[in-house]
């Protein structure tokens, strides 16, 4: 998506945390989780379904507080932004919302 520049680095600890939440949300195997990378698209690569995104949004809010509002974040995205939404985009969003 547009506001995640290729040069932007992904905070590795935040990435690991969020990858763990993706695993919990989908109830998948560790083998599946090994395919989670910052470039993995939530929909096209990880095959996340909308119900799983809702559950993920709740986990993110519980962990990082009300400023991490996944429904509000995705509501601001257009169709192509949503189709291309990656794990890295999610990590950057959480980093922005929890900074300072």
């Amino acid at each position, binding site marked *: 998506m547009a506001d995640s520049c290729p040069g932007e680095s992904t905070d590795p600890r935040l990435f690991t945390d969020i990858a763990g939440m993706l695993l919990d949300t989908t109830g998948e195997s560790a083998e599946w989780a090994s395919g989670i990378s910052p470039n993995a698209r939530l929909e*096209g690569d990880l*095959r996340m379904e*909308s119900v799983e995104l809702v559950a993920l949004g709740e986990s993110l809010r519980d962990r990082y507080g009300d400023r991490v509002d996944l*429904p509000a974040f995705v509501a*601001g995205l257009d*169709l192509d932004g949503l*189709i291309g939404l990656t794990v890295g985009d999610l990590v950057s969003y959480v980093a922005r919302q929890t900074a300072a």
Partner: protein
Amino acid sequence: MSRFLFVVPPLVGHVNPALGIAQALARNGHEVAWTGSELSLRPLLGADATVFPTGTRLHRPQADCGLAALKSLWTRFVVPFARFTLPAVDKAVVAYEPDVVVVDQHTPTGAAVAHRHGLPWATLACSTIELARPYRGLPKVEAWMRDLLLTLWTDAGLPEADWHDQRFSPHLVLACAIRELLGDNTFPDHVKLIGPPLADRPGRDFDLGLLDLNRRRVLVSTGTLADDVADGFHARVLRALEPLADRVQAILVAPPEAVPAPPPNVLVVPSVPMLRLLPHLDAVVSHGGLGTVNEALAHGVPLVVAPIRHDQPINAARVASAGAGVRVSFARVGPDALRDAISTVLDDPSYRAAAARLRDSITAAGGATVAARHLERLARNGSDRVSAAVRQRGNG
């Protein structure tokens, strides 16, 4: 006697429900005609049906899931098909002079043409996706679709000020779903939840003697549009079924050459007469297309639903929350989880009981008979209402 023109896309899951309603109208003495791709419609409607052909425009096969599938459905099929068929649909309306135009939700051209000629039109919703509004939390996605529809409208030469969402007739919306499949959405009074309008369809051969009455019988079908992704799923289903051989017989709908060496408890057939087979089944494993879900539930048969795209995730979620089935991930579910899901719906009687409750709801919704009654009322009153609306606008 009234005349009804059906505007439909070349998709089996959309033509079959329309056919059920058309048969009910014909039984009541009305005339019915069709406009669409004759190549696709003729085998489904039979030699006697009146078809005003629009020509056939090849569209790319479906792919993707989620929002990528939504984008591809609209930009590669709904919009180009609407543009391509506009002149032919207009000609069909002029030639046939219908009292009511019945417009599939994914052939928006029918709505524009009906409006152009001042005719009352009814929407036929053969999918839950527009009514359940899964993208209500994604305003830019809903706006994107509104823009596509508005552009089709104005490109058809209609004034922007007159625009009406082509997916929802202001006169009558016939939804081929029961309340239990549409969640807690509220609808205006002119939206009628008729359930599945089951049609007498030209029979395909299936020897019921092949069924093993000493085992539970499970149908596995991923519908008519999932060929691109079905193979991997079928392989997992076969591995799931193998250890159940002593107690489960499966009928897998697939091209036999795609499954060269099925286990002995699996019959592979290219297609089945669903309505004839369903009374003999204990469970259906499906991608969750509304047609298959409706037909299984109309027979009180519980489901394992592995949704791929479009309204299938909605249908899967509603079947699961009604207790009439188990939802699994089409892309990710492995053989063990699939076997668990199949065993669960077969062994836990609560699933069959919930499916029986939904069957009763479907019976009460009335299907094709009730749809025909609503359409007859629209034919009687509709033209008055439309001319009143036009007069109103003229005065305003």
